């Protein structure tokens, strides 16, 4: 037992009691040990399978294309049919074509104007119209394929015209672009695996969520807070003990979630899809190490929010909102294409996200960056814990 009059008196007592009591609470256990570690990898596996299937399917499947007035451009229609277009001949004027796409009768309509053949014959640009719904991202691929094929058809015609006039068609190709894809199986899977960092951070927070609520709003609602405050333990120490217990559950959740992911990734078999993830034992350990400091920050943060709530229910609704915080850096990082720099390591959640991404890409981790991330996150966490301790000294806390 700790010396009764020491400065940290009571912290360990409260920590141990909260930790053990919550081991008996189904709700806490469920959120710490089941939701993140089990549903995280499951969700991830499902999404991976789905998105891989989607991209596989999109390139093989014939594109359904309605062509209005096929009789005006039989060569073009033949060209398209020969290249995987599933052509449906229709007769639609401009308004009807538009309406057909809007009401989903056809997903893509290629309309060939009356003067198409005439303009082609007189070597003037002949327009074709492609009707599609740009707000449907799923169809963007098919639309792009149609446009590319029509473009290729046009290019072929241009070359034939040049040849017919005795000109080398290469003269019309001043610059040739060659695509060199340097992505490796590991980097290709990063897009999917960046989700992993989100799920890991989220399930950490969820792991400590119920304890944070229970230890503040819950304790008050049950009427056990006031007796607790009559014990000779400084109020701040009571809340420090509770924060540490919540942080312990977050660490437990982190450990289990990352382990579950490391196992799941093997079973998903990313290699089949030309991807691989650097998530062996060593990478998993590094991820755990760089996320661990989040526990103190997350627990203090959730505790502060919960301490403001008037009831358990209110705390719950605040926190389910607040828990979305770790998604913000993910969104920013994605939008701005951020990569790890020492300055960005100062930002909690963002630094962990960037580090996890680097680890998954099998890139060497900069020791300084890791250090800055750990120290800054721990520093902010300590500050928040101190704020929570101050809050517990207010009478308003009693509600």
């Amino acid at each position: 037992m700790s010396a009764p009059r020491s400065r940290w008196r009571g912290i360990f007592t409260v920590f141990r009691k909260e930790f053990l009591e919550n081991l008996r609470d189904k709700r806490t256990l469920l959120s710490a040990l089941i939701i993140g570690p089990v549903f995280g990898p499951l969700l991830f596996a499902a999404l991976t399978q789905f998105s891989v299937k989607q991209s596989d399917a999109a390139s093989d499947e014939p594109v359904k294309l309605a062509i209005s007035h096929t009789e005006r451009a039989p060569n073009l229609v033949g060209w398209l049919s020969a290249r995987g277009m599933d052509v449906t001949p229709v007769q639609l004027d401009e308004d009807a074509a538009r309406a057909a796409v809007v009401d989903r009768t056809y997903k893509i309509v290629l309309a060939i104007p009356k003067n198409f053949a005439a303009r082609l014959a007189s070597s003037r640009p002949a327009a074709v119209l492609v009707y599609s719904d740009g707000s449907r991202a799923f169809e963007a691929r098919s639309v792009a394929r149609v446009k590319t094929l029509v473009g290729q058809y046009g290019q072929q015609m241009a070359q034939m015209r040049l040849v017919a006039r005795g000109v080398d068609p290469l003269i019309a190709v001043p610059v040739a672009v060659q695509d060199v894809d340097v992505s490796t199986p590991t980097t290709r899977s990063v897009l999917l695996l960046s989700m992993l960092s989100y799920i890991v951070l989220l399930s950490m927070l969820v792991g400590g969520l119920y304890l944070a609520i229970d230890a503040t709003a819950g304790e008050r609602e049950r009427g056990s807070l006031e007796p607790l405050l009559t014990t000779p333990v400084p109020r701040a120490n009571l809340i420090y003990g509770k924060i540490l217990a919540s942080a312990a559950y977050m660490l437990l959740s982190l450990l289990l979630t990352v382990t579950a992911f490391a196992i799941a990734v093997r079973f998903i078999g990313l290699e089949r899809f030309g991807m691989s993830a650097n998530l062996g034992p060593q990478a998993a350990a590094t991820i755990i190490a760089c996320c661990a400091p989040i526990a103190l920050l997350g627990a203090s943060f959730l505790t502060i929010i919960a301490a403001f709530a008037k009831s358990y229910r209110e705390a719950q609704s605040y926190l389910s909102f607040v828990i979305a915080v770790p998604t913000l850096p993910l969104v920013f990082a994605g939008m701005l294409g951020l990569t790890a720099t020492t300055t960005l390591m100062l930002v909690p959640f963002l630094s962990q996200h960037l580090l996890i991404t680097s680890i998954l890409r099998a890139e060497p981790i900069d020791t300084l960056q890791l250090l800055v991330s750990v120290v800054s996150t721990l520093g902010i966490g300590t500050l928040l814990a101190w704020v929570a301790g101050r809050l517990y000294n207010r009478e308003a806390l009693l509600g």
Partner: protein
Amino acid sequence: MIAARELRKSFGQVVAVAGVSFEAPDGRITGLLGPNGAGKSTTLRMLYTVLRPDAGDALIDGISIVAQPLEVRRSIGVLSHAAGVYPHLTARENILYFGELHGLARALRERRADELIELLDMQDFAARPAKGYSQGQRLKTALARALVHEPRNVLLDEPTNGLDVMAVRNLRTLLRRLRDRGQCVVFSSHVMQEVAELCDEIVVIARGAVVASGTVTALRERTGEAALEDAFVKLIGSDAGLE
């Protein structure tokens, strides 16, 4: 020994306690009697250092509740109004937890827990999680928890609320036993018969102030009424909030 001097407390515009002074000597049971909303609970909450008085002070065994609240907490045992216990802990664990918070060594707090479980007749349920406890069982647990460190002063806020007759009788026996051991017992109630039966000293509180204090006999003499109830009504100036 508790000595309250001109305690004052307001919540926003509402004046809950407007200058309460009284003394509760050792070896006596002192009852704070008053209608609902008179300021009894607020007075007790200031005494057990959960609320800080706006003005005034109180000395518990000579230590100021304002200047040294942590020291005061060592010498008081508190049964608060909503005496909640931890549902996933057993009664024994609830008691042990508070023993540890009071800094008792493991062997001592285990011995105290066993003593209190026997004293309060809690053997039937002490090893069961508190989740399914009856009101009486919860109260016993909260009481044992408040007494684990053998406090010199015991403060109870409406302790008989929601208890059946047997439980009330047991509580009375316990409080008398504490008094006979020389401890200072203070409890609040709005039930007059209870106060009359149990208390050595009565402090009548109405509208945030002490309107009378003394022994039951002294109060009867002062108001000239034979029945305490009539005396009480006369003292607080109305019969609002009485049972």
